[in-house]
């Protein structure tokens, strides 16, 4: 009886945010209008060509590609949270799995669009598929990103099936179409043992599959760079360097989202201080791994200072990019690690603030990886206008870069208005479990 009451409060707590309120409409309005402004910038690029951006012959990968790498990176967190932590059976992570999965889905699907913004002739997108060569990392990248989006979608959907049923049952005041969609999507869920078994099996298979796919997606992305022989990209550790960096960015993104949900959706009892503490520890762990890779990536060539590496590294350490380089390394990586080692700093607010630094740092780190290398080709730059030599993003380019970020936030916002952000079914199940054990 008491349990019935308890599970009812849980259900209503976790369903509370599925409704339209003023705050949501204002928030979406702001996002939507900003997004439209950015889209307008893109129409200018469509009309006049890529020349409206600051990218030129030498630095031809600028903000757009940095942004793409960032998006792919953030999306990897879905794999870490649902698959890795889930398969090892780390219980505290399971209420956060859906947040991670929503972020993964939003960022992975927008990543594909980011690439299109870097195309001078997006109308020829289909040619990539028709004339692609398996030898090119780009074809693998497209394949694996598509696969990752599908798996993320499935990993979001499968655990949602029981929740859709709950939504259908409990959200009687919701519009009729919404309920019909819940009903269809709940696939006649009846909580039978067989159904439970099918869901568990399917999730397990996908959780295993997503691990190599996620490693693939970011390793292949890193090979887009590492498979060339240019100073700064010609590195054998680019794969793990990218993957570990991705976890850092993803953890930070999840923490920021957790904080937002906890306060806006009043989920204090479900996303607890303990969760922030654990996520902060996880962030420190992955950051330490990433720091280790950074050490290798810069220390080894920095010790040898081979001719062309030296030009590149001097530019990063003391040259034109030094400020950005040291800021990303110190503010985005070293300091966060140190700060989060203190227990008092692993409370929700400080963790969230540190995570914002980490996430912004992660974005600029992608820029540091993508752009400076291109400013020093092996053959000297000759007889070109001055703006070919140094990359300066244009306003239009910056707006087009912001667009995907807004789009990802829009997707996340909408998703969290139509599905429960904390898995209800699982939470209830966990409530029953100790009892079951006790009965036996």
């Amino acid at each position, binding site marked *: 009886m008491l349990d019935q009451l308890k599970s009812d409060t849980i259900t209503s707590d976790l369903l509370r945010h599925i409704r339209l309120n003023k705050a949501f409409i204002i928030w979406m309005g702001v996002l939507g209008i900003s997004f439209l402004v950015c889209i307008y910038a893109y129409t200018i690029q469509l009309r006049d060509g890529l020349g409206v951006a600051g990218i030129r012959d030498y630095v031809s990968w600028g903000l757009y590609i940095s942004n793409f790498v960032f998006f792919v990176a953030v999306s990897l967190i879905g794999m870490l949270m649902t698959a890795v932590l889930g398969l090892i059976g780390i219980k505290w992570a399971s209420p956060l799995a859906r947040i991670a999965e929503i972020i993964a889905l939003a960022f992975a699907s927008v990543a594909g669009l980011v690439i299109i913004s870097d195309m001078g002739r997006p109308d020829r997108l289909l040619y990539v598929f028709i004339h692609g060569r398996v030898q090119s990392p780009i074809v693998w990248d497209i*394949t694996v990103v598509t696969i990752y989006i599908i798996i993320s979608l499935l990993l979001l959907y499968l655990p949602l099936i029981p929740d859709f049923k709950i939504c259908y049952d409990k959200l009687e005041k919701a519009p009729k179409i919404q309920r019909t969609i819940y009903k269809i999507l709940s696939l006649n869920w*009846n909580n039978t043992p067989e159904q439970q078994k099918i869901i568990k099996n399917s999730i397990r298979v996908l959780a295993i*599959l997503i691990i190599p796919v996620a490693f693939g997606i970011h390793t292949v992305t890193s090979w887009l760079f590492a498979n060339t022989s240019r100073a700064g990209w010609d590195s054998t550790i680019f794969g793990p360097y990218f993957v570990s960096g991705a976890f850092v960015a993803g953890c930070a993104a999840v923490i920021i989202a957790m904080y937002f949900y906890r306060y806006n959706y009043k989920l204090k009892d479900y996303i607890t201080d303990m969760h922030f503490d654990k996520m902060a520890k996880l962030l420190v762990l992955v950051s330490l791994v990433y720091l280790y890779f950074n050490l290798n990536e810069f220390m080894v060539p920095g010790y040898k200072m081979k001719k062309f590496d030296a030009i590149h590294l001097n530019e990063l350490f003391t040259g034109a990019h030094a400020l950005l380089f040291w800021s990303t390394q110190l503010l985005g990586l070293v300091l966060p690690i140190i700060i989060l080692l203190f227990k008092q700093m692993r409370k929700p607010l400080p963790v969230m603030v540190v995570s914002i630094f980490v996430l912004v740092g992660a974005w600029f780190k992608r820029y540091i990886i993508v752009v400076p290398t291109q400013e020093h080709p092996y053959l000297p730059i000759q007889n070109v206008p001055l703006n070919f030599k140094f990359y300066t993003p244009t306003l239009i380019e910056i707006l087009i870069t912001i667009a995907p970020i807004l789009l990802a936030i829009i997707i996340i916002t909408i998703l969290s208005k139509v599905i429960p952000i904390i898995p209800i079914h699982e939470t209830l199940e966990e409530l029953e479990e100790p009892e079951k054990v006790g009965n036996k």
Partner: protein
Amino acid sequence: MYKKNIGLKLTTIILGSLLAINVAAQNWNIPADQSAKNSSFPFNASTAKEGEAIFTKNCVSCHGNPGKGNSLKSLSPIPPDLAGAVTQHRTDGDIFYIISTGRVIMPSFKDVLTDQDRWKVISYIRSFNKDYVQVLSKFDSGKSKLVKITMEFDAKTNQIKVLVKANETTGVVSLKNDEVELFAKRYFGKLQIDKTNRTDANGLVVFSFPKDLPGDKNGNVDLIVSVNDDSYGEVQYQKVFKVGVPTNKPSLTEKRAIWNVLAKAPVWLILTYLFCVFLVLSVFGYIVYNLFKLNKSSDIKNLKS
């Protein structure tokens, strides 16, 4: 006072040597007959346009765009801006000679661009000079059609024999004392064979051919002979001879390779790719099947209860 003097002297020396360099730079020692040469076709907008294309491909990297002063400053001497007074004061024949022979850093374009192309570039360079008035060559370019060249290979002596005649209305005449060059066509440009020779009284000229020149897989070499006659102009003749060493170097794109087209991708790569995609697709299939089962298993339960 003393110091000042040294300074003055130094300045004089430096200025003087600079002037000397400048004079040397301008002085190309062009033979008078070359200097007096002229194009046989009139320069107009369309020849200038064709010339611009050639210029963009061959010259702009050093000289920059005429009139823009954006030549490559890191070279010594700095390639002059060709719209400048120094160049524009030269005769067409001078410029033609400079482009043809080159000097140290300025490459020779004799074997890269045809006579016609070199004149077109000059037409482009002249289009930046409003005061320019063209002097046309008096020479009748139609006459070059009368020239008849025959080429033979003598296997015993390993020599190429070239006979140069002209079919005049008055009868066949031999072209005497004409400059003749022999080239073998290579992947990039032409390779001169032997030295530049002159025809004898019978219009005959003999080149000794190397024994080790690589040919195609049958040993064929594309030979080009170029004759320059004062009254008939420049005439070229091309013929394939089986005089090279048969060489069968498969093209780099013949076999399967990472850099080749999709149809010629390495087998292991195609298989790996297909295997991965197949694996993923079968898992997706399994999931879809599971979802169907999920849907069904609920129905059965409902019926039973």
